């Protein structure tokens, strides 16, 4: 089975956001595989171990994003592809999906996995967009995946409900939390990953019209939410604190 995983390198979720000259600063930031994409990588490796075949991890991003591919290969993915092109600076989800589609159109695949969203932009767009561009179905926010021959069975999280859905290969699925527990790369895994094939591409290597890749949307401003002022820690007898809290919520904050 040929399995593709689309992933994004993101800030570690522990990172604070600092804005410098109107942009988000990357100074000293730890990068990780987007946690939702990490579920996709883990699931892809398990599928391959069960059915045979190959896992290819693909990313569109700057040079540093290679590290995310190496990590995925240290977990067990077989090879990687990175599309790195400075002309993608004005890219949005529309553009990224088109670039991924151009890469994938030249590959053989049975199933494509990715996270349902990235923890930085949180748009939850690229998976479904890519499936549409490739003309295949998608199922988003899955928490269980079984493949038997051509038949695909998934459990999909729908805001707390679970849908049991059947479909067929080829398909794109996006991972919700709870799909699996991603493994940590082992030391031998890390050593092996260094020798696994990694293909670097720019837009010239792809059959895309660069003029058609400009984002449809633009970011005008990035800003931090207003800082919260320190609140009021109540004191006194617990019983009185509780009474005071209810009073404050009703009469000062007026939320009850």
């Amino acid at each position, binding site marked *: 089975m040929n399995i593709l995983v689309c992933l994004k390198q993101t*800030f570690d*979720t*522990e*990172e604070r*956001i600092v804005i410098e000259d109107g942009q988000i600063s990357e100074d000293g930031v730890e990068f990780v595989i987007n*946690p939702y994409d990490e579920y996709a990588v883990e699931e892809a490796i398990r599928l391959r171990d069960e059915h045979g075949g190959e896992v290819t991890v693909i990313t569109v991003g700057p040079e540093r994003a290679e590290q995310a591919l190496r990590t995925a290969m240290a977990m067990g993915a077989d090879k990687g592809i990175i599309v790195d092109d400075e002309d993608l600076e004005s890219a949005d*989800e*529309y553009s990224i*999906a088109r670039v991924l589609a151009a890469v994938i159109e030249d590959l053989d695949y049975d199933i494509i996995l990715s996270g349902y969203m990235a*923890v*930085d932009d*949180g*748009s*939850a*767009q*690229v*998976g*479904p*967009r890519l*499936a*549409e*561009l490739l003309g295949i*179905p*998608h*199922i*988003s926010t899955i928490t269980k995946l079984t493949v038997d021959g051509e038949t695909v069975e998934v459990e999909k999280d729908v*805001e*707390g*409900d*679970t849908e049991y*859905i*059947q*479909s067929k290969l080829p398909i794109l699925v996006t991972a919700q*939390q*709870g799909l699996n527990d991603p493994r940590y790369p082992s030391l031998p895994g890390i050593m092996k990953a260094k020798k696994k094939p990694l293909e670097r591409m720019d837009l010239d290597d792809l059959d895309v019209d660069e003029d058609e890749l*400009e*984002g*449809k*949307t*633009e*970011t*005008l*401003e*990035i*800003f*931090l*939410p207003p800082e*919260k002022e*320190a*609140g*009021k*820690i*109540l004191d006194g007898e*617990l019983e009185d604190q*509780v009474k005071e*809290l209810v009073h404050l*919520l009703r009469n000062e*904050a007026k*939320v*009850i």
Partner: protein
Amino acid sequence: MEPMSKNVLVLADVREGELRNVSLESLAAAIKVADGGTVTAAVFGSKGKDLVEKLAHHGADRVLLVPNEQLDTYTTDAYFQAFKQVIEKVEPDVIFTGHTAIGRDVSPRIAARLNLGLVSDCTDVELKDGKILLTRPIYAGKAFVKKAFRDGIVFATLRPNNIPALEADTGRSAEVEELDVQIAPDSLRTLIKDVVRKASEGVDLSEARVVVSGGRGVKSAEGFKPLQELADLLGGAVGASRGACDADYCDYALQIGQTGKVVTPDLYIACGISGAIQHLAGMSNSKVIVAINKDPEANIFSVADYGIVGDLFEVVPMLTEEFKKVLAEG
């Protein structure tokens, strides 16, 4: 000068026959940007007729019904076909859907097919000098961006609970039209075999006005009971920190944080939650935050409007009793 008015299409979000609040909020956003243009609400499914009045009262000038039974339950392919035909008929300048299981699943596919941009999960929409500006959180609310469209239809999904719906105006009515959409059974590539409802009782977490949330301090699945009682009393929902989910005290569907859900209720009550940065990202934009924690140094107090230092198993039941008393007094 050219008229700036815009035709706006809102896809109504219907779950189990009920119109979700985010659809009324989307209508309010639509009126904000329409500038005198027509606001059309599209409703899918055989029971759409029942929702016309409510949509009209909240701002729809026109309601377009696609009454196929195939649309009673959401599937991507069926909704995609209906949505695409609605867009071709309405020819909108602006499209809004909720950023919900439906809106965020079908909208990107539509955007890809029609070569459109899409701005997801917006918390505010404004019209400035004829241009539509969309505000949305990034890094789960650690920062925000303001976005605009370079060209094409303005297409956005709106986060529930952020843009206030308009008061119902019972004097308003809407023009109603049906659209005939043929959906071939073999065009539906995914088949729902079964649905297990976990969230059936109680309020949806992302739309709840009150969230009572538990962390590691809740200590067990059983420990969530007093939180649920408080949430039920206040008409709210129960949430959890990653710690509580990882420890298996509750389902991941309840997780609030940078992985998990981002919520912005009127009142967020954090019980036994330390306040890791990744949790704060998911809730710190709530309107009022109450923290209950044994540890006075807990980081959660830094974002709380009101804090009680104490054992949640003591404080939460007392709080429930006190609310019962006060609410009974009216």
